[in-house]
């Protein structure tokens, strides 16, 4: 396979930088790694063909500093830039600045990032493409009668929240018309006192929500899906454990879910790798689109494990102008894969970030085991960035076998003296609810509240 890209600037750090460099090498592309002062010695910097330092440790002054990154791109002579995830990966102005310089931004164009990166716009696009969204009020509700009528139409339980609030503020769940009649005046008072605006939104409350997302690839004309992942195990909205495919999804619904993601991506002529995130409501047996990510995701390896497709290579090929090399019917989902995130956080101390030295890094090896990391023995986890040390990914012909393999691999995995979340994953891999696939997005926080972990 060939691509017109000759030299690629890696505008990220840690494990995803390593992952991008590996994909670039496979395609014969030279690499330039940008580093902050704190990252001079990181693994990706040692692997890349060239290194450019772009500023002090603080991300705002280095990896998030648009001027410095663009300056590095200019100096490097690279003809393309891969933004990875996080940092500037979903910054539409940045993507535009890269293309304005005549370079390739590995991802969708700025217009698509802007449109699909905005939750409200993305929701509108989904509705237009016939993709279901969480049913709720279209605009503000200012009185109890309108709320009652709508709740009857949606079905209980429903959730009411302040129009002016944000971040989960002012949300209450009601299960009957009587409860709703009592709750609405109280919620209006709370919203008025808190925000000076008593307007409310009402929407279906999904009691046992599961987070399911669909991986898609598009070349601007054709769009394919690479099936779904489930990422219901979350702590403070951070995914902790991810699987492909989703264990609890009925087959008929899976086909419809994946088709809806393709439909939505096609409606915006999507180009690149992307992810449609959904909530699955097992009680209503329905799925609802919530948002789209216009970039590679941390958990992409589980999809790679079950489909055999190298997503980062595909991104680079599409960015280079190639059409998709595969048709939907070529893509198969075989077996089951699980990824767990190993973070430098101490689960015994309420996940306190614990940056520090990595003297020991023993990684299990073998068929169907993969460990993606940006560190090796002798490195330090710096305190300035996210705490991801590495991702352990295993697969098996069935979910049960994958879990069994994960359990063994976690026993062999040894990282220290820095504190990590390995003990959490060892405990989870033995948990009955998890083995039964009996979880929701609320499950992990509840479990953590009830179970003390020791490191």
């Amino acid at each position, binding site marked *: 396979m060939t691509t017109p890209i000759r030299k690629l600037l890696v505008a990220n750090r840690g494990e995803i930088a390593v992952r991008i460099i590996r994909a670039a090498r496979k395609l014969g592309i030279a690499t330039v790694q940008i580093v902050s002062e704190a990252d001079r010695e990181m693994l990706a910097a040692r692997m890349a063909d060239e290194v450019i330092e772009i500023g002090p440790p603080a991300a705002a002054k280095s990896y998030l500093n648009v001027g410095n990154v663009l300056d590095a791109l200019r100096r490097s002579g690279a003809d393309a830039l891969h933004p990875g995830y996080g940092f500037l990966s979903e910054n539409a102005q940045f993507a535009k600045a890269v293309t304005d310089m005549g370079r390739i931004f590995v991802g969708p164009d700025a217009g698509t990032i802007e449109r699909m990166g905005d939750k409200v716009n993305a929701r509108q696009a989904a509705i237009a493409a016939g993709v279901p969204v969480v049913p709720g009020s279209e605009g503000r509700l200012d009185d109890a009668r309108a709320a009652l009528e709508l709740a009857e139409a949606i079905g209980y339980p429903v959730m009411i929240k302040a129009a002016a609030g944000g971040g989960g503020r002012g*949300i209450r769940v009601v299960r009957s018309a009587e409860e709703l009649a009592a709750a609405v005046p109280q919620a209006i*008072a709370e919203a008025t006192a808190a925000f000076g605006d008593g307007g409310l939104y009402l929407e279906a409350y999904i009691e046992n929500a599961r987070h399911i997302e669909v991986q898609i690839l598009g070349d601007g004309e054709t769009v394919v899906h690479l099936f779904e992942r489930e990422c219901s195990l979350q702590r403070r909205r951070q995914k902790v454990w991810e699987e492909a495919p989703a264990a609890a999804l009925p087959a008929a619904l899976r086909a419809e879910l994946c088709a809806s993601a393709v439909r939505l991506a096609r409606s915006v002529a999507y180009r690149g790798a992307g992810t449609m995130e959904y909530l699955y409501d097992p009680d209503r047996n329905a799925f609802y689109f919530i948002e789209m990510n216009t970039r590679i995701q941390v958990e992409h390896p589980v999809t790679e494990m079950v489909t055999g497709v190298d997503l980062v290579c595909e991104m680079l090929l599409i960015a280079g102008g190639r059409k998709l090399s595969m048709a939907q019917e070529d893509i198969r989902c075989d077996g089951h894969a699980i990824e767990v995130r190993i973070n430098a956080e101490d689960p015994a101390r309420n996940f306190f970030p614990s940056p520090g030295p990595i003297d020991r890094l023993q990684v299990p090896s073998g068929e169907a085991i993969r460990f993606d990391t940006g560190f090796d023995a002798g490195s330090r986890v710096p305190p300035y960035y996210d705490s991801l040390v590495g991702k352990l990914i295993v697969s098996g012909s069935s979910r049960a076998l994958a879990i069994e393999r994960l359990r063994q691999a976690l026993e062999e995995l040894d990282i220290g003296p820095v504190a990590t979340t390995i003990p959490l994953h060892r405990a989870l891999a033995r948990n009955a609810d998890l083995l039964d696939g009996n979880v929701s997005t609320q499950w992990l926080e509840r479990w953590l509240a009830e179970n003390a972990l020791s490191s």
Partner: protein
Amino acid sequence: MNARCITVLKPGLETTVQELPGRIGYLEQGFPVSGPFDKWSFRQANLLAGNPRDTAALECQFLGPTLRFDCDATVAVTGADMRPKLDGEPAAMWRSLPVRAGQVLELAAAYSGARGYVAVSGGIDTPVVLGSRAVFHMARVGGQALARDQVLPLGPPPSGAGDILAVPEASRPPFSTDKTWQIEALAGPNDDWLDPASVEMFFSADWSVQAKSNRTGIRLSGPQFAFAGRALDKSSDHGQDPSNIIDHGYPLGAVNLAGQTPIILVNDAPSTGGFINPFTVASAAFWKLAQAKPGDVLRFRRIDREEAGRLRAALETVTSAGVAVRV
């Protein structure tokens, strides 16, 4: 049986006893109203401790105190997150905490917000001065800020105390997460002393809270004001500066303009003086001023009296007894 009291092991930063409605009826002799700065958090703390909502309790500022309970009691901590610990173990905020004699409640520095409240069943029973237990620390009216080893007497426990209650998150005051606060304010009494463009400017600019702010005033940094003819051409009795006016009463919440520095006059502010007050913060928005930290940005939203009334009614609802639910 121990006396019902609390011993102050560490006083914190100007921790005071406050009570509602404050010192009413003495403004004409120069005594400020005082009382809790964030009434929302204060009342919810009392409800959780099983008290009537206006009972005397402690207001902590930026750095909380360490207190030893010399009797069994029900305690509640609300307001700024000072990460309370009971005998070294993290203790929950916004819910009733039963404590036993000898236990120690420790509050640290405020991570979110600026003012925390500690209510104890029975209330703090310091002497009433001019009708209130509220402390005006600067003039030592009603006592002064807590001191190490001070013993605070408690009132008799309320009947029916002992329920474990919590305030659901939706009913708590929402603290800014992006360092900006929307503050509802009304024009007047002296907006006619400013150039009309400066009146508009006040409601559109970003105003940053200075570190010199305290319970007497929230000092703001921001753009400059231009004055109206009335301020520039006046009798010498008013004083020389355009912002000078013949001494007059200062409304609570007034945005007082001394030269070019706006100071929002809050609970312990002077009752009168010789500077103009072009704007006044709505009474139901005071709690936000209490929780704004140095460097935070205030944006003022212009409202009328009718809307100020709706805000008061809403605040009344979220600080009424029904808001604390049994756990």
